[in-house]
């Protein structure tokens, strides 16, 4: 795969990774009263990263496929650890997503005055860490970046979080412990995989090498290892019994953390399940697929129903994101190229959507100091632009055509209805309940009679508009011209050898209901 | 004759050691300690380690014991005859110690494969031999030990001198 590409390596990805890091270092050495300057530098750093990843998105050669912009530096040769970067059709959308949301999240926290310096330093570390997981081509590096991510999140929730149903300390602790428990299981699976792959010498952590040595993994081993990864990545993607960190965590976290967490961090779970689970351990994936599918349905319907009963805006969106992740899980369980296409696109779509809606909720909370739905109402009178952003986010959430979410959902359903018809039908039923709770919050928060107590509120303007513009543009651009996104994802699915794996795996299951 | 000398001094060292840990007077303990050190020095001599024996006498018997006595003097409060009592868990301590000794003794006595020299060598152990080794093979540890001693000296001084309250 990578060997087919010209050697020498591209420094594009390290630059993308380095831009926010550099901004972080600059901020570290700035006086902490210069909050305006700090924000501008943070925005610049993330802007550079976003622009470069946009460049990568369009410069990626789709006809060639495979890992591109690769760079491999041996790091710990004895253990086979390489500082290997590279992106393909699966990870490049995630990288772009990270940077889009990272850039927007800076602006969503534009009014942050409390310990601004520390906040932006941690935020930039967080963005860098998430980015690193997606551009890593080496399992070790992947894991390293993943662990980096956990630290700033905990601190940010504890310091800048908000206490609602649960205290922010509880929320932060829950978030962190879930992430760490997940990563503990992952670590065991990772080491087991590493040892199994090194059975005949030549140890390696490289994804493609691990995948190429599938004949070394016995079926029982694959089942066990995939089980471990399912637990690890599953708790990250908020799979049904391990989902409860998600609403509490989002409710406790500050806006930017909610955006990044719901937008991209969660997607590491889905990405890892595809990249590491399905790709490296196909027999294990096949074995666990019915379980994943069943839990995914629980995700979709159970979380959607719970979202109906929520009073706090962030809880609604928190459960909604659990519900949407169910679709990604169904797609993974369906194990065919179409559905994997849909899964990756859905992660992208949901990331953009949830980041947009979380940023809007952040503004609502910032201005009205409440997120309690019964206390809100008629905000469209005073804040029409905010209402537009909120409605765009809501419409994307319920999968309205012309938003990228619709095509992703459609692709997922298309892929999964062949192999898992019953589960897919139940999942599609979820779109009704999604519509119900989404429209309810739109109606109850934005519409309704004018409330005089909000009359002094100012509409979002200036920098505050950036998340709306950036994310809204992406939602519609990718929704109206889906080939922009899907062409890339498809090249990732079909050229990475994943397709072959999937075809062999799903051969036996093809046939469907009728 | 060596056997007799060995047993005399070995028993002396052990008896003195038991005196250290059983005496209720801390000053007696300190003197028993010096005695025990001296007994061990003789054992060194029996093992051809003359230089070590000298160092043992100089450092342990000469310096350490005296320092301990000084420390006792500086910290002694109340009745000296009850200055070194046992705590409440001494029974457990005795049990574990005896257990450990039993295990070691069992291992030592049952192990037949010590790869002992067929005939013991007799030379070596002099100051000259040691110095050659210290200044060639163990050069760096030797220097490190020197640094350690210096640091320990300085540290001890600072600690013992203490920090003035109102500074």
């Amino acid at each position, binding site marked *: 795969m990578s060997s087919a590409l010209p050697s020498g390596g591209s420094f594009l990805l390290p630059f993308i990774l380095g831009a926010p890091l550099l901004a972080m270092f600059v901020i570290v050495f700035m006086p902490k009263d210069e909050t305006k300057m700090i924000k501008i530098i943070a925005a610049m750093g993330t802007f550079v990263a976003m622009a470069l990843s946009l460049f990568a998105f369009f410069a990626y050669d789709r006809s060639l496929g495979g890992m591109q912009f690769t760079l491999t530096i041996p790091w710990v040769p004895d253990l086979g650890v390489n500082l290997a970067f590279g992106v393909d059709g699966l990870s490049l959308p995630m990288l772009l997503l990270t940077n889009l949301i990272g850039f927007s999240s800076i602006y969503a926290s534009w009014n942050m005055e409390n310990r601004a310096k520390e906040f932006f330093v941690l935020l930039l570390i967080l963005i860098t860490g998430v980015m690193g997981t997606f551009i890593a081509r080496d399992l070790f590096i992947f894991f390293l970046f993943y662990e980096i991510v956990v630290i700033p999140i905990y601190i940010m929730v504890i310091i800048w979080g908000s206490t609602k149903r649960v205290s922010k300390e509880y929320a932060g602790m829950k978030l962190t412990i879930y992430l760490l428990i997940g990563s503990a299981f992952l670590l065991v699976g990772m080491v087991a995989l590493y040892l199994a792959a090194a*059975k005949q010498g030549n140890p390696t952590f490289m994804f493609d090498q691990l995948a190429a040595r599938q004949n070394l993994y016995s079926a029982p081993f694959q089942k066990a290892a995939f089980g471990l990864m399912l637990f690890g990545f599953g708790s990250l993607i908020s799979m049904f019994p391990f989902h409860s960190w998600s609403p509490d965590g989002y409710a406790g976290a500050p806006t930017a953390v909610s955006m990044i967490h719901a937008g991209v961090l969660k997607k590491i779970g889905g990405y890892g399940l595809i990249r590491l689970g399905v790709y490296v351990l196909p027999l294990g994936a096949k074995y666990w697929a019915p379980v994943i599918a069943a839990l995914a349905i629980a995700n979709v319907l159970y979380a959607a129903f719970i979202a109906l009963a929520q009073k706090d805006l962030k809880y609604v969106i928190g459960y909604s994101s659990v519900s949407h992740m169910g679709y990604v899980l169904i797609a993974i369980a369906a194990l065919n*190229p179409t559905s994997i296409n849909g899964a990756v696109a859905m992660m992208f779509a949901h990331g953009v959507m949830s980041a947009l809606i979380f940023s809007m909720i952040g503004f609502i909370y910032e201005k009205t100091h409440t997120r309690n739905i019964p206390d809100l109402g008629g905000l469209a009178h005073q804040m029409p632009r905010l209402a537009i952003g909120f409605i765009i986010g809501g419409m994307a959430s319920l999968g309205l*055509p012309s938003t990228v979410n619709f095509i992703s959902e459609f692709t997922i359903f298309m892929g999964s209805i062949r192999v898992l018809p019953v589960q897919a039908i139940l999942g599609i039923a979820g779109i009704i309940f999604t519509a119900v709770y989404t429209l309810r919050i739109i109606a109850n928060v934005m519409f309704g009679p004018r409330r005089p107590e909000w009359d002094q509120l100012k509409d979002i303007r200036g920098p505050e508009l950036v998340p709306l513009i950036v994310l809204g543009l992406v939602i519609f651009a990718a929704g109206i011209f889906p080939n922009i996104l899907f062409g890339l994802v498809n090249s990732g699915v079909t050229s990475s050898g994943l397709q072959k794996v999937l075809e062999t795996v799903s051969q036996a299951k093809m046939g469907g209901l009728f | 004759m060596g056997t007799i000398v060995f047993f005399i001094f070995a028993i002396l060292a052990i008896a003195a050691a038991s005196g250290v840990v059983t005496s209720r007077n801390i000053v007696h303990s300190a003197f028993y300690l010096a005695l025990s050190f001296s007994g061990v020095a003789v054992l060194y001599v029996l093992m051809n380690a003359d230089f070590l024996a000298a160092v043992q006498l100089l450092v342990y018997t000469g310096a350490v014991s005296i320092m301990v006595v000084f420390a006792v003097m500086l910290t002694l409060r109340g009745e000296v005859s009850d200055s070194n009592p046992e705590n409440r868990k001494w029974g457990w301590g005795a049990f574990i110690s005896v257990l450990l000794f039993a295990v070691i003794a069992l291992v030592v006595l049952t192990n037949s494969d010590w790869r002992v020299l067929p005939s013991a060598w007799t030379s070596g152990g002099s100051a000259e031999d040691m110095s050659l080794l210290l200044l060639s093979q163990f050069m760096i540890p030797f220097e490190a030990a020197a640094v350690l001693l210096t640091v320990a000296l300085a540290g001890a001084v600072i600690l013992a001198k203490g920090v003035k309250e109102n500074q």
Partner: protein
Amino acid sequence: MFKEMHDLFQWAWLIPALPFLSFLLIAFVTKRSKGLSSTVSILAILTALGLAIAIGLGIIQSGAELVEHPVIVSANWLNIWGLKIDIGTVVDPLSGMMLFVVALVASMVQIYSLGYMQGDKGWSRYYAYQSLFAFSMLGMVLATNLLQLFIFWELVGLCSYLLIGFWYFKVSAREAAKKAFITTRVGDFGLLLGILFLYNKFETLDFTALSAALSTNLQNVAVVGTVGYVTVMAFLIFMGPMGKSGQFPLHVWLPDAMEGPTPVSALIHAATMVVAGVYLVAKMYFLFEASPVALQFVAGIGAFTAIFAASIAIAQDDIKRILAYSTLSQLGYMVFALGVGAYSASLFHLMTHAFFKALMFLGAGSVIHALHEKQNIWDMGGLWRKMPITGTTFFIGVLAISGVPPFAGFWSKDEILAGAFQNGHPIIYAVGLFTAFLTAFYMSRLFFVAFMGPEKPQNHPHESPLSMTIPLVILACFSAIGGLAALPEHNFSFFIHFGEFEPEAMNWGLAGISVVAGLLGIGFAYYIYVKEAIKAESIAARFPIVYRILNNKYYIDEVYLWLIHHIMDGLGKVLYFIDIYIVDGIINGIALLTRGSAKVLRRTGTGQLQTYAMVFFFAVVVIFMVFAFGEGQLSSLNPLAMLGGVK
């Protein structure tokens, strides 16, 4: 001839593109300037109308050739492994007819709104929505495949949502908008499933390709499966129209949708969007035809909706609600027409209904405008004298819907009833006939109560401005003469038909019966409400339960509300309870267990160094013993040996 037209038809994409451009312009450029916004929007839709007329004339010139060989222009939209979707435009008589109807009604409504929406704060927003709606509806009409149709289908739903909730400060409007979206969403669930199953089976969503695949493989059980599969797919597809076109039991949103501005009701909830379902069934007719059971079902649902909605309409007092139930009833007509195989008649009725129902809604809007938002017909009276243009045009509408010749409704309704009778559905024919009677009755009731009779002194009505009356007049003309498209000799069905074209002679006997039914309805209404020969109140008093049930729309809304609030929300609350107390409770329980054990275990941290040392050494002794006396077992646990093979 056909060749030259072909070039024209390639430009059909401009028709939806123009309103979309106007939407973008209004949203991003002219939103601050009210005059500019409406000008842009109206110019765009009028140009689109012009194009639609040009294309329509081209279709008429090309003749029936287009039915068999529609002009399709398409480009790839989505292309991934196992899923390839094109997007494009199809020009055939059916889409040409729809283009004309939609563009005409939309432009009329937009012009009308100049007067009706005068002074509204959301003027630019209104025209932006209108343009977006025109784009979506026209795009849907031109769809080449099911997914494209579904996309625009959902977009018109969005516009409907936005426009019903246009006055978002009204709680009733906001609830109605929500209800409309969710109810149609239930139907869309089925439609989406149907699309997925169809693609799964035939690997295409293209209408022509699907039709070909189905017809060539209809006998081949291995490919199509049983007819049962086709029936299931047809049922699922039909769920979409049930939601969108307000067929029982998903009809509940349409009457509530009247909370939107009246021109919106005229455009979306009478003339265009709600007939999208009929259009979809017509487009997918090859599927339905392959399954007699599905057709039966369609006919049954349609007929039931027709009579059911008509029966509610006779007991309503709100002018817009009467019209809304009338719309439901007429939609039922179209649907059962499709069900009984009167394909052309159904689409013919779709067209004529669009004219006269838009006309009546706009007329109602004119009345409401004049009476300052009064909507109860009993608050009106004697309006004809004060509002002659509105009154006259409204009367034409009433005559048209009642099926009085030579107005438009007569021709289409008659064809439907004749189709039902001749294709062997006597029960449905009877239901249709009775519905025609009811329709005539309640429409005349509305007209007599509101426009005739004594004036109400508290009202000071005045005729509406020209911007409102001109569309009324234009639509009235179409309502009056639109039915003549059926002449001579089934001209309409010559162009728009399914399968082989078989012209049938006009059955004047059947036509006479339906005319009699209509006139009977009008006569009854005249006797009750003008002559007051029988007191309306006395009828209501004699059948109090019937009246209450009808007035409360068979309590269906209440049942749904109960289901939503008690079952769905209740389930949500129960699950939430489970989530925080059981799922989360287990998690917190584990955490508590950890904390509890820590509380016990920390007692061991006495701070006594000697205790620590003792424990430590005890462990050392144990390990030492294990290593010393049990080495046989332990040498195999060498950690380096476990990593063996790594290096």
